[in-house]
């Protein structure tokens, strides 16, 4: 017993000494932090989401050569599918359109698409010609729709204007889609077999939700929808908040994610040429009939989020008036 007691006392003493030793070396050389700061890379830029797949491959810790081979393969595949810059615009769009219908589950939805198009009067005469395409063998499909610079074109697809088809499908899919579905479902219409008007609504609600979350902390709207600006403003506003008003970690994480999503959504619309505009720097929160954000729909009309976070679809003329109002 005595031995045990003395041993535990020794241990306690040892731990105390270790704690004391732990407090040594508290000082660093003056100017050391500045020396580290000098090494901050100039290209400390926001992440590039386009490289996600490449990073994922690199993170697998497989051999460098295998990783390089996979990356090269991926690039070749992407180029062969979506490249074709030198090809005629029409052939390129047709090729891209067909690739999206290449997967078997998608082929099952073909009839749905045709009926949708019929209702809209895009291809009244060509149902038969379209529906025969997926039933043909894969090899034939590939051969016939391989992008060509000349030579005979497939008659079935010739009757439909590729732009019309793409536009029709985009119309069904809604003006935007949630980012989680970005990769798995290029077209929610084909994934669910239903017309997804709710998808557009979900996006709008998410945008409003993100702006609201930002406003709750900062009291204003983000001045720009670039991730760098938004995070800077959010961080500085959060810092100035009183300690008692601290946000729980989970809520903070949610808000950050929402803001990241918002910026990505805006970028996505810019890339798609949907003419988005954002006036967070000019607009005061809560002001009705003042445009905070807008983007163009496929129909040519505009979806507008006002400063009081109401949302409405307006014509181009009305939008012009609305946007001119704060300037007057």
């Amino acid at each position: 017993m005595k031995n045990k007691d003395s041993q535990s006392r020794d241990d306690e003493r040892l731990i105390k000494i270790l704690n004391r030793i732990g407090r040594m070396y508290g000082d660093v050389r003056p100017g050391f932090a500045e020396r580290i700061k000098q090494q901050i890379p100039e290209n400390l830029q926001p992440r590039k989401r386009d490289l996600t797949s490449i990073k994922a491959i690199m993170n697998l810790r497989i051999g460098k050569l295998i990783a390089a081979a996979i990356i090269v393969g991926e690039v070749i595949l992407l180029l062969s599918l979506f490249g074709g810059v030198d090809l005629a615009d029409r052939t390129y769009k047709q090729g891209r359109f067909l690739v999206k219908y290449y997967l078997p589950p998608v082929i099952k939805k073909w009839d749905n698409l045709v009926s949708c198009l019929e209702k809209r009067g895009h291809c009244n005469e060509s149902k038969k010609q379209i529906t025969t395409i997926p039933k043909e063998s894969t090899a034939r499909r590939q051969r016939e729709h391989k992008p060509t610079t000349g030579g005979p074109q497939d008659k079935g697809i010739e009757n439909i204007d590729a732009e019309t088809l793409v536009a029709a499908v985009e119309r069904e899919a809604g003006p935007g889609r949630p980012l989680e579905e970005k990769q798995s479902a290029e077209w929610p219409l084909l994934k669910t077999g239903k017309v997804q008007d709710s998808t557009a609504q979900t996006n709008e609600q998410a945008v409003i939700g993100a702006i609201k979350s930002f406003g709750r902390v900062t009291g204003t709207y983000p001045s720009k929808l670039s991730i760098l600006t938004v995070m800077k403003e959010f961080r500085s506003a959060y810092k100035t908040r009183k300690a008692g008003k601290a946000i729980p970690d989970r809520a903070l994480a949610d808000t950050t994610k929402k803001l990241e999503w918002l910026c990505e959504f805006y970028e996505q619309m810019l890339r798609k040429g949907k003419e988005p505009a954002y006036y967070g720097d000019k607009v005061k929160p809560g002001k009705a009939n003042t445009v905070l954000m807008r983007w163009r729909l496929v129909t040519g009309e505009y979806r507008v989020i006002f400063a009081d976070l109401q949302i409405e679809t307006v014509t181009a003329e009305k939008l012009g008036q609305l946007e001119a109002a704060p300037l007057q």
Partner: protein
Amino acid sequence: MEKSADYLLVASLKAGDEKAACALVDKYHRRIYVFLRHLGHSWWESEELTQWTFVRAWQNINNLKNNQTLKTWLYRIAQNASREYWRKNKKRKMELNANEACVAVHSQNSQGGSHIAEEFDRVRQAVVKLPLKLRETIVLHYMLSFSIAEAAAVAGIREGTFKSRLNRAIKKLRKELAHQEKHYEK
């Protein structure tokens, strides 16, 4: 509160904010340096490895997962840097500047005599003599006062494994100290 601040720091870093990179250095450079010193590196090695830790952190901030905390993640980078260093420099013995330790102890114990300083020095020498993995557990838990969960996260092992490692480390440390005492008496 610290977690929330770290969360914002991470978000800003991910957004490419240069001020956040500076804030990260201001907040953690001293702690990382001390950690590396306790692992047995000389002051200039510790400075180099601290710099390297931050460069790696800036480069890989996007790899920081949501369930990881910034603090443990940074320490883990530093620990990996240290391990890599020891692997590359197997022949180099760990620096232990006894005088330096004595000076530090004397400055902290104005009333304590050289006896305390010697005891501290012996403990420190014994810690540095421990195998790397055991030394890391001692440094993280007892010297830097990390909780078991945090220290296990830094070491990249389960809590149970960490506890058993800690137990082994203490036993070995005790043995080493007893050995030193005998040697001292002779």
